[in-house]
Every structure is written in structure tokens, then in C-alpha cells.
């Protein structure tokens, strides 16, 4: 920030970004309840405000006045701090995300971002790695078996997916040549090799995009990867012992991380606030970037909601298999491939457009390999399951029938 900027500019930037994400989160909670309700053939909240849109507000008020029970066995300083960590980390993450373009107000020109750090992308990763402490320490400090299970699950899950996500982000900043979020957004602003095609990184870096999207669902701890709070197995997971406002903070942090993760994927892979302005006059043209950013982020938020409504929770070992055996290798290979294209084009070998096409081609190959590999794995797993659920298992002459090779080894 230059010294000449008056104080109200950073204050306004901070307030606008803060209010934007808070409002987005409140609307997400309402939208999720309505959409999941629709998917489950019920209505969802529809009483307060038009279509029930103010339900979240009322719920917030309710949580504020509910009794906040602290069980006597908890480990107190950490029990109190844990929910705060999640909310604080969530709100700090959004500091580097530009929600709009240049705005001119009272003769001051500024961007709708709190802080455009030189290391903005790493800032996002660093804070999401601190977010783990919220669920993890809450689980431990509750001094109760199910929360501890939830906390341990969440830490293992988040560490695993953080690696994959970090590698996916690495290929973005290798490709862009900068760690600064505004540079990455600017690099995606033009059109791609074909006129009219957006220059989004999701196209040349498609495998990284896929890895990041899967990883962000796991990082946000959302269904189908919500093993940390799996209500069918662990009561409420890490937040079982929490009530009142402190439970509200966990809820806010979780839904907030959905919005934040969507905003990050939009910023890194889908051009952030860039988009056509349709030749609007300058006075209102600043609305368009905010509109595009909101639209793209809302699309990903909707994707999160659909996932929750459509998919059952994965089993734990499947989650780990996916993270370590699929996502991390793909992301690693993709960092190498990206670095190779960048080096070749830096040496003057190929033009930027050629580089994009090469990257698209390599991405198709990686995804194709991944899908074949996954199908084989799935077939192998299905074979296991078939052997397990074999209807002939109680058949007296089961040994006479052809069996899966797996069972041959154990025949006594």
C-alpha cells in the first residue's frame, strides 16, 4: 500500500471483502438447505423472509442466545481456542483473493482485494494448513472418544490432501511464473489460443484442476469426505461436545471454507473476476468483474451442495487410497510436465499458443491413463467385493464351484 493512500481505502477494502464472504456464507447455508431439501423431496426452510432466505440469520441469533455448555472434563484453554482458530484462518485466507477489478471511488483507484501479497498463493496454502488445528485440537480437547476419532481422522485426511492440493497449486504458479494472485489472474485474463475461448488455467492445467477440485472437497471436510464429523459413526465427530455459539463457529468455519475454497479454485483456475464487460460505461463497469466472480464461485458452491445431496460418505481407506495413490502421483507428474513446457517455451522453443495445446494434449493423456487405471482398480475392488458377498458362501459344495483367486489361497 503506498503511503499516499488515505486510510479509508484499506478499511473499505477489508470491510467489503469481509462482508462479501460472510454474506456468501449465510446464503450458502440457506441454499444448501433448500437444494438438499429439493433433492430429498422435502421443502426445506421457507418461513422467514422470501423463500426462507433469512433462516440463517435467525439461526445465528438462536445460537447466540443458546446456553454454551462446557463439559467439565474438557481441556479448557485448547477447547476454547479451537473453534476460533477455524474461523480466523477462514477469514484470513480471503485476504489475498480479489473479488473484483479496479474500482474508482472519490478519486481513489483501488482493487477489491485486501492484500495482494507477493506470496499470495502460498498464503492460501499456509492458512488452510493451519485450519486443521481447529478440528484436530477440538477433537483432542473434548476429552471424549468420538471427538478424538474425528480429530485424528481429520488431521490424517487434511495432511494427505494438502499435499495433492499444494502440488496442484504448484503447477499453477510454475505455469504463471509468479506467486502473486493478481499476476495469476492477469495471466488468465485474455482469450486462449482460439478466439473467444477463455484463457483459464483450467484448460491447459486440466489434471491439476481436477486434483484441486477433489482436494478442496476433502480439505473443506464436506460430503462425501466428511469423515471427521461422520454423524452415523461418530455422533458429531470433533464437535460432539460443543454447543451454542462455539458450535456455531465450527459451522461457520465449515461453510465458510466451502465458499473460500470455491473462490480459490475460481481465482487460480477459472480466471477469477475476469470476464467480458459488454462495453458498459466506466461508472458501472466495475460491477461486471464482481458479477463474474460471484457467478463462478456460486457455480462451485452449487457443486459442493450437489455433492452433498448426491453422494454417500466414502470409506476411510478409499479416501486415503484416492489421496495417496491417485491424486498425489497425478499432481506430481503434472508439476513435471508443466515445468517441462515452461522450460521449453522459455528457451524460445515454442510459442505460448503451442504451449497451451501441448499442455492440453498432455492433460488428456494423463486423464486417460488415470481413468484406465481407476477402472482396473475398481474392477479389482469389485472382484474383492464379489468374493466377499458371494451368495454361494454357505453352499456345502462351494469348493466345487469356480471361485475368485483371492479365496483359493485361504481354503483350509
Amino acid at each position: 500500500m503506498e503511503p499516499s493512500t488515505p486510510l479509508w481505502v484499506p478499511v473499505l477494502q477489508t470491510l467489503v471483502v469481509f462482508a462479501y464472504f460472510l454474506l456468501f456464507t449465510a446464503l450458502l447455508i440457506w441454499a444448501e438447505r433448500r437444494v438438499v431439501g429439493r433433492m430429498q423431496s422435502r421443502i426445506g426452510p421457507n418461513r422467514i423472509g422470501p423463500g426462507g432466505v433469512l433462516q440463517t440469520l435467525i439461526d445465528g441469533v438462536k445460537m447466540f442466545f443458546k446456553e454454551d455448555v462446557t463439559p467439565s472434563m474438557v481441556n479448557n484453554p485448547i477447547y476454547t481456542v479451537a473453534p476460533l482458530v477455524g474461523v480466523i484462518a477462514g477469514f484470513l485466507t480471503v485476504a489475498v483473493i480479489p473479488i473484483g477489478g479496479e474500482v474508482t471511488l472519490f478519486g481513489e483507484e483501488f482493487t477489491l482485494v485486501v492484500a495482494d501479497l507477493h506470496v499470495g498463493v502460498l498464503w492460501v496454502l499456509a492458512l488452510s494448513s493451519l485450519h486443521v488445528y481447529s478440528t484436530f485440537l477440538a477433537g483432542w480437547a473434548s476429552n471424549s472418544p468420538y471427538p478424538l476419532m474425528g480429530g485424528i481422522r481429520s488431521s490424517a485426511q487434511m495432511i494427505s490432501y494438502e499435499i495433492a492440493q499444494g502440488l496442484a497449486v504448484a503447477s499453477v504458479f510454475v505455469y504463471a511464473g509468479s506467486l502473486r494472485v493478481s499476476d495469476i489472474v492477469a495471466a488468465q485474463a485474455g482469450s486462449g489460443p482460439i478466439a473467444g475461448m477463455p484463457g483459464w488455467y483450467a484448460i491447459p492445467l486440466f489434471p491439476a484442476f481436477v486434483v484441486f477440485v477433489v482436494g478442496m472437497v476433502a480439505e473443506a471436510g464436506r460430503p462425501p469426505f466428511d469423515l471427521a464429523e461422520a454423524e452415523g459413526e461418530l455422533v458429531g465427530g470433533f464437535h460432539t461436545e460443543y454447543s451454542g455459539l462455539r458450535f456455531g463457529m465450527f459451522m461457520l468455519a465449515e461453510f465458510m471454507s466451502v465458499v473460500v475454497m470455491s473462490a480459490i479454485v475460481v481465482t487460480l483456475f477459472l480466471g477469477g473476476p475476469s470476464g467480458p464487460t459488454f462495453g458498459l460505461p466506466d461508472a458501472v463497469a466495475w460491477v461486471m468483474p464482481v458479477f463474474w466472480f460471484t457467478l463462478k464461485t456460486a457455480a462451485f458452491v452449487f457443486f459442493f451442495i450437489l455433492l452433498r445431496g448426491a453422494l454417500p460418505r466414502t470409506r476411510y481407506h478409499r479416501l486415503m487410497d484416492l489421496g495417496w495413490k491417485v491424486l498425489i502421483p497425478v499432481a506430481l507428474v503434472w508439476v513435471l510436465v508443466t515445468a517441462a513446457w515452461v522450460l521449453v517455451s522459455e528457451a524460445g522453443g515454442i510459442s505460448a499458443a503451442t504451449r497451451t495445446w501441448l499442455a492440453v494434449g498432455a492433460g488428456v493423456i494423463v486423464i486417460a491413463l488415470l481413468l484406465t487405471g481407476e477402472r482396473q482398480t475398481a474392477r479389482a475392488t469389485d472382484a474383492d467385493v464379489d468374493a466377499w458377498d458371494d451368495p454361494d458362501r454357505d453352499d456345502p459344495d462351494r469348493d466345487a464351484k469356480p471361485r475368485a483367486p483371492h479365496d483359493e489361497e485361504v481354503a483350509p
Partner: protein
Amino acid sequence: MTLLAQVAPTAGGTAEVVVFWVFAVIALGSAIAVISLRNVVHGAVMLVLNFLSIGGLFLTLESAFLSVIQVLVYGGAIMVLFLFVIMLLGVDRDDLLQADLRTRVLAIAGGALLAGAVLFAFVGPYTSEASVCGPDAPAPGPGEVACAGLAEAYDEDDGAGARFLGRSLFTTYTYPFELAALLLTVATIGAVILARRRDLEPEDEDLADLDAAAADDLDGDDLDGASGAAAERHVAGDGPGTTERGG
């Protein structure tokens, strides 16, 4: 003592000094808490705080990249693994921390020796005026080290030191870098070898055991399935009565 932040060309002055003192006090305080708190998890959380404040100190040294990496790698990944192991193994009891007097004296002496050596060898040469990067730094005397590196970092002009650090790590210091990587790999392989259990085949064998057990269960059910279910109902019905007697 003059702080680097007070004379570096792009530094702002008092704000950096304030930030330095805040983070320095938190870093020292949390470091003392790490070794003095009885609860292992509390100690680990204090270590996280310590890493975060050291990240803050890197910021006052104009290295945003190192600062974020400190938070990401040490504050995030490594400490989460630490806590994970502490919680998984349930070693958060303080009876592991008993030490007799002789061990304590030896530990204090060893710690003091190590701290002294580090201060003398690595910090000492940098405490003179010559080490402070600025337009009017005097020439280094004997045993003093002149300011170096910051100018090159600024020349690279990505403002965070990432490019400079990456280039020097992968060109000038490739050998130590690879050596450190090798060391970590050897440690990982060693851990895997130590932790491996030789007596059973992984995964398949487990599944096979379960399979056989399940088959046995089912066989049993075939013999007296109805009475087994009745027994289960009986146990379930007995539950509340048992608790009443207990209370």
C-alpha cells in the same frame, strides 16, 4: 543494537521494530512454554505458536517467502504430524517426563553448551554494525561479516525472495540440498523397515482371516440361527436392567 529493519532501504521504520519486538517476545515466551508445560499437547501447541512467531520474524527480515514457508511446512504440516502421533499413541501423559537430578543437570549443561556454540559461531559474526545492510555500513573488521545477499534478493525483484532462494538452492547449493533430501529418504526407509511386521502378509491375509471368521459365524447361525437371535434379543432387553442395578 540496530535492527536490520531500521536501516534496510525498503523498510518503513518504527512499524517493523514494533513487529519485531512483538514476535520476538512471543517466540521466546512460547519456546520457554514448550519445555516447561507438563502436558505434551500443550507443549506442542506452544511450539506451533513459536513457529508462527518465527514466521513473523522472517517478515521483519523482508523475506515473505520464508515466512509463509515457515508457517506452511513447520507450523502446518510437521506440527500436525507431531500432534497426530502424540494423540494416536496416547503419549499425552506427564509421567513420561520424569527425569532424575543427574539427567537434569546434564541436560542443562548440554543445552547451555549448544546455545553458546550456536551464538558464538553463527550469531556472533553478524552482530556488528558492518552486518547491517544499509547505505552507510562500515567495512567489516576481523571476525565480522559484511551484509550480503539482501541486495541480490532485491535485484531479483519478485519482492519475496522466492526466485532468489530457488535459484541458489538448485544451482549453488545443489549438493547440500540433495544430501538433505537423501537423509530424509533414508530416515523414511528406516522407519518403514523398523515398523514393518514380518509375521503376517499385509491386507490380503487380514481379509482372509475375516473371511474365514465370517464363514464360521454363518455356519454357526445355520445350526441354531433362531435361538441365537433370541439370545441377542434377551441381551438387548437386559441392558437397561443392568444399568439400573449399577446405578
